[in-house]
C-alpha cells in the first residue's frame, strides 16, 4: 500500500496573509478539516490544526494571520512512499496529518493529505466504499458490554 492509495486528494488551503477568521470559516464549511497554509506561488509553508485554531478562542480572529497560527511544515512526503514509512513519520513527529507533495513540481505543491483517520481505515482492514462488507460486519457484531 502506498501513500497515494490512501491519501485524501482534497487539500484545504489558505494564504499566509489570510486571517484566522478565514481559516475558521474554511474549516467549518469543509467538515472541520485542518488547513494548509501556502504562499502566493502555492508552495506549502505550514499546517494549521484544529487545536491551533481554538487557542485563539475569544480573541479578535480578524487581526491574527494564518502565518501566526500555523506550525511550519518542513517534510517532503512523496505519494509513492510505502504507507509504513508515512506512519513511522507520523509517530515520530506527532503530526496527525501529513501533507503530500507533488514530486514533479519545483516548489512544494500540496496534492493530498494523509490523516491518522485514513490510517485507522487502513488498520481496520475495511475496504473503503465496500458498504456491503461494512453492513455484514455490523450484523455480526454484538453490542459492546453485552
Amino acid at each position, binding site marked *: 500500500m502506498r501513500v497515494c492509495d490512501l491519501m485524501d486528494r482534497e487539500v484545504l488551503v489558505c494564504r499566509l496573509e489570510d486571517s484566522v*477568521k478565514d481559516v*475558521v*470559516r474554511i*474549516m*467549518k464549511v469543509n467538515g*472541520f478539516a485542518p488547513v494548509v497554509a501556502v504562499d502566493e506561488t502555492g508552495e506549502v509553508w505550514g499546517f494549521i490544526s*484544529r*487545536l491551533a*485554531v*481554538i*487557542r*485563539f*478562542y*475569544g480573541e479578535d*480572529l*480578524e487581526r491574527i494571520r494564518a502565518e501566526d497560527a500555523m506550525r511550519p511544515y518542513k517534510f517532503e512526503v512523496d505519494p509513492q512512499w510505502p504507507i509504513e514509512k508515512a*506512519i513511522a513519520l*507520523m*509517530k515520530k513527529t*506527532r503530526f*496527525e496529518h501529513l501533507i503530500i507533495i507533488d514530486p514533479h513540481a519545483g516548489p512544494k505543491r500540496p496534492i493530498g493529505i494523509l*490523516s*491518522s*483517520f485514513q*490510517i*485507522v*481505515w487502513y*488498520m*481496520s*482492514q*475495511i475496504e473503503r466504499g465496500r458498504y456491503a462488507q*461494512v453492513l455484514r*460486519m*455490523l450484523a455480526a457484531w454484538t453490542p*459492546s*458490554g453485552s
Partner: protein
Amino acid sequence: MEEIVRRLMRTGSITCSASDSVRKVAQILAVNSTHYCVVTNQSHEVLGIISARSILRAFGKDLDKTTAQDILLPHTFTITPNSTLREAIRLMDRRKIEHLIVTSDREGSKAVVGLLHIEDIIAKMAQEEQRTA
C-alpha cells in the same frame, strides 16, 4: 457572559469495550466516521477514550491481540459542565486532545454526562464571528 461547557457538550457517544481488540476499535471508528471512541468496562463505567492517534501509535503491534485497555487515554482529563470553555480549551491544548469527557460536578460523583468536541468549539467560533460581522 463567559461560555460554559454545558452549552456545547454532546450527550451521546460511540463506545467500545475495554476488552475489544484494537482492530475492532479501528473498525468502530471507521464505520462511524468518528475520530474517537469512549472505552467502558463491563459495568458500563467509562475508563477512558481512544482517538485515531492512539490507534496510529499501535501500528506494528498485533492488532487482534492488543486491546482497547492497552492503548486508551485514561479517564483523567475531564471537565465539568459548569467549567468555562476557556478552561476546557486550555486543557485540550495542554494535553493535545480534541475531545474531553465531561463529568458531573456533584461532589463525589464521577458520572459521565457528556463529551466536548473540538468541532463544536470551532463551530461556535465561526458563529460568533458571523454575529459580530
